[in-house]
């Protein structure tokens, strides 16, 4: 069924958007880059369509093509675009301008840069209203305030006269959404609107999108690399790969039973928070990288990486054809009726053996870190960021402890404290029986090789001017683990092989590697010194889901082979649940709850844990949306730190609840543990 067939089936309603065989190229010096190559889909009035795919698959270029907002050297070279039946490609610039921001609006990915820093929020909101002549200035002002309030911004009358830098990322994204809805558009295109935000804020924004769709009947095209996000808003989804749509179907069906091997890999690369955990924690990951857009393979574009390919795939390019009622897929194998195996991150049955009860490798008591800020002026009061406010933790040998919490809750500071990159303000840190909280740098140096860190941004943490061979050799030589020459070369080769890289690549530079490969290199660097403890601060956040799966699998492997102990920091709760034995939930630099992973997710004791888990986008799950954002870290919290946002806060919460063991191995800092009608995920 093609787009035009579908239109004939329902002649009475003109779809909002019809895209047929859209082709967009970048005319680069190296040749035309076919960024969008024959994309077709239709969005009916009030419908929701998601577009998912890995980085570089052409999602953003598709969106910009729809808005006709492409910039040099991009050019639409073929296809048809119709908006409410009108041909977008035949429109004059002024006709297009009249549509943009009026009937069709777009919200971009990065709310931090999308608002003009020198213009008040009010003007940025009202200019499309008055610019398109729909409202007079006083009306526009009233409407802007109304919309902001509708988007969940407190005291909108005052907020409108602020400047963007006075808003947090979440608030700015609300402003961007309000801007999108300024003139009640028929279509809203949102390109990764929540990617830069915390799960809790993401949940608020997605909720808002859903409500706005229901209330105003605005059709929504939501672009994301996260199928979960799309599933929680969009009924249908188009999966993109190398500039093509490879599958289009109702989101729930794709999640349940994907019909294209790439979609299958996407679905199975991510651990699902709503599925039982198995003994085998390996995730599905596909090797290789998307094809070079300058030299696309002649047959199926996914063939070089496809685990299901047959002989025909490399010769003939498959069309997007119906594989089931209402389901399109671009695959010879599934079109022939073959079913893709049910497999996934969650293996089957049995829990992982808990690490043997041993003396903890790392033990933290009453850890505090305050960062004094420079005074604003000589007379201004001294200001202090209270990053970590008394944390107790124990990490056993061979165990993986996950640290979760919203941004700014002190996760990274904690990582830097236990590795003594920062010196704590107070408290004790014991590493393998040795007190290191106030040890001198000289006393810590021998311990350094036993605890290593892996950072979020693999590119920033590798020296761009050093070959990876030198990068890996440096710590070996510095700590006298290998002598220069053959011995070092041999060790470096081994390390590369350990993390799944070709040892022949030693003389390459970091920029010659992909993001995932770079993260493997930083893991190899951490492993060079044969550490016992690896502290990984958001090691997979900057990576595509498939590469995330590769890195997670690698970390699991290495742990089994080398008996590593991990302190794993992440904001993705499903990943934490998947990888970790225990989890500690941080809020404002304090532990709210700490428990074995499975139990914590199945039945959270602390209200904050419950709302965090509930914020994870899982299609078809009702959630409690946590309002507001964490309070400022400039003032030390009194009483229960969570009480300003806690749904069940009571007067007694003004006395601070101690972190107490409520059940065996389950600690929570709440006066009413387990009382909040939670949204935990059943095991």
């Amino acid at each position, binding site marked *: 069924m093609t787009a035009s067939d579908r239109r004939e089936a329902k002649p009475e309603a003109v779809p909002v958007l019809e895209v047929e065989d859209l082709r967009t190229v970048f005319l680069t010096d190296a040749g035309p880059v076919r960024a969008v190559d024959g994309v077709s889909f239709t969005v009916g009035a009030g419908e929701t369509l998601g577009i998912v795919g890995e980085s570089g698959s052409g999602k953003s270029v598709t969106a910009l093509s729809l808005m006709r907002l492409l910039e040099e050297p991009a050019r639409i070279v073929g296809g048809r675009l119709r908006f409410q039946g009108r041909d977008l490609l035949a429109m004059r610039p002024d006709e297009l*301008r009249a549509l943009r921001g009026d009937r069709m*609006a777009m919200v*971009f990915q990065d709310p931090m840069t*999308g608002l*003009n*820093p020198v*213009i008040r929020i009010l003007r940025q909101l009202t*200019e499309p209203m008055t610019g398109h002549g729909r409202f007079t200035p006083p009306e526009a002002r009233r409407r802007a305030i109304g919309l902001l309030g509708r988007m969940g911004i407190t005291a909108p009358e005052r907020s409108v006269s602020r400047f963007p830098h006075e808003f947090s990322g979440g608030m700015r994204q609300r402003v961007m959404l309000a*801007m999108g809805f300024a003139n009640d558009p028929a279509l809203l295109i949102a390109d990764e609107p929540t990617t830069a935000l915390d799960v809790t804020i993401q949940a608020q924004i997605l909720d808002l999108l859903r409500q706005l769709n229901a209330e105003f009947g605005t059709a929504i095209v939501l672009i994301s690399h996260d199928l979960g996000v799309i599933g929680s808003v969009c009924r249908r989804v188009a999966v993109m790969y190398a500039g093509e749509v490879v599958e289009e179907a109702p989101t729930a069906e794709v999640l349940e039973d994907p019909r294209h091997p790439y979609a299958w890999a996407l679905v199975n690369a991510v651990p699902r928070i709503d599925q039982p955990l198995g003994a085998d924690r390996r995730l599905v990951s596909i090797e290789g990288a998307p094809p070079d857009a300058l030299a696309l393979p002649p047959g199926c574009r996914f063939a070089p990486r496809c685990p299901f390919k047959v002989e025909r795939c490399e010769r003939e390019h498959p069309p997007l054809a119906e594989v089931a009622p209402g389901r399109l897929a671009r695959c010879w194998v599934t079109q022939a009726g073959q079913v893709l195996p049910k497999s996934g991150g969650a293996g089957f049955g049995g829990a992982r053996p808990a690490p043997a009860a041993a003396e903890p490798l790392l033990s933290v008591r009453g850890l505090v870190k305050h960062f004094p800020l420079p005074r604003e*002026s000589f007379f201004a009061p001294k200001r202090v960021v209270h990053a970590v406010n008394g944390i107790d933790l124990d990490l056993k040998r061979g165990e993986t402890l996950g640290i979760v919490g919203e941004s700014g809750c002190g996760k990274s500071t904690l990582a830097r404290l236990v590795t003594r990159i920062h010196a704590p303000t107070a408290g004790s840190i014991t590493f393998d029986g040795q007190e290191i909280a106030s040890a001198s740098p000289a006393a810590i140096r021998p311990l350094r090789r036993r605890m290593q860190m892996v950072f979020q941004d693999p590119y920033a943490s590798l020296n761009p001017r050093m070959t990876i061979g030198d990068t890996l050799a440096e710590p070996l030589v510095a700590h006298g683990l290998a002598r220069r020459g053959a011995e070092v070369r041999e060790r470096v080769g081994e390390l590369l092989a350990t993390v799944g890289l070709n040892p022949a690549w030693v003389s390459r530079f970091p920029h010659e590697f992909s993001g995932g490969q770079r993260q493997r290199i930083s893991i190899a660097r951490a492993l060079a010194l044969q550490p016992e403890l690896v502290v990984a601060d958001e090691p997979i956040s900057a990576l595509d889901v498939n590469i995330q799966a590769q890195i997670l699998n690698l970390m699991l492997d290495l742990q089994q082979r080398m008996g590593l102990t991990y302190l794993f920091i992440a904001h993705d709760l499903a990943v934490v649940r998947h990888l970790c034995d225990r989890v500690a939930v941080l809020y404002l630099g304090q532990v709210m709850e700490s428990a074995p992973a499975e139990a914590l997710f199945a039945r959270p004791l602390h209200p904050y844990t419950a709302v965090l888990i509930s914020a994870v986008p899982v299609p078809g799950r009702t959630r409690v949306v946590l309002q507001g954002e964490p309070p400022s870290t400039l003032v030390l919290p009194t009483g229960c730190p969570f009480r300003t946002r806690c749904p069940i806060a009571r007067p007694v919460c003004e006395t601070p609840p101690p972190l107490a063991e409520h059940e065996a191995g389950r600690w929570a800092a709440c006066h009413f543990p387990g009382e909040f009608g939670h949204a935990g995920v059943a095991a």
Partner: protein
Amino acid sequence: MLRTLVTRLAGAAVMAVLATLVIFLIANTVPGDPVLAQLGDLAASNPATVAEWRAKWGLDLPLWERYFIFLRGLAHGDLGTSIASQRPVLEDIAQYAPATVELSTIAFLLALVTGIPLGIAAAVWRDSWVDAVARVISLIGVSSPTFWLAFVMLAVFYGGLQIAPGPGRLDPIAFPPDEVTGLFLVDTILAGDWETFHDAVSHLVLPAIVLAAATIGLITRTTRAAMLEAIGQDYVRVSRAKGMREGYTILRHVLPNALIPVVTLGGLAYANLLAGAVMTETVFSWPGLGRYTFRSAAALDFPAIMGITLVVSVTYLLVNLLVDLSYALLDPRVRR
């Protein structure tokens, strides 16, 4: 805001005094003796005359004491007496400064009103002929030596085409207006003397263009670069996605952001124009500070040099302060 202002002003005062110390030390270590420059060979060969002259100007005192005397005078608003003109330095400066202020202000305004629009046009129509023209103009402005440019302008428009008046602030036969501010443009308006006003304006044109040339080039390039940077920002794409007109997007979203770096440059450029008008003033016989500086330096006239240094550094610091204050106006992120 007020507190910041006061702290900054106090800081500026300290900096200005420090600048005089530096100049004082430099001026006293340059080879050359004011005695020779002032008394002439004959008188300088008589030790008694020289000693008397040195004592009169305090040159026989130790260095620190001379600096202390200078500072004490400064505290009382006295900059000493010029060796060459035998008049109070402050009076000299007050006499010469208005001509320079008038010339450099006009030159500065000229640089702004040509440089900024040219830079905007060059960025908006990047790589088109407009951009090419702007590039050539700024290249000529920045690279032609002031001295040479001044002569060429005079030769072409005064000597050759005879459409511009000759050197000086006014025609030799014209009467200067009654002095109120010393700025002829202002004083003639105050006096309602339109004929002299026209004369003053026409005398300003050539020197102002010459003086502004380099600044026009700098401002054009800076504006263009800042505009291009701002045009690439996400909020510009957002404005287009909102369906705003292109002209509106450029003027309301791009320009205010692009002006922030231009203001920094503008402040420095203005201070430089004030201090660096020597060449232009010499060629156009402009009775300004530039020429006074030149004369004082040639005569090793210490009190005059010190006075000029002080005035110039105070001006620099004040202009910088103004630049910082206008940041707060342009950029809400630095407002407190």
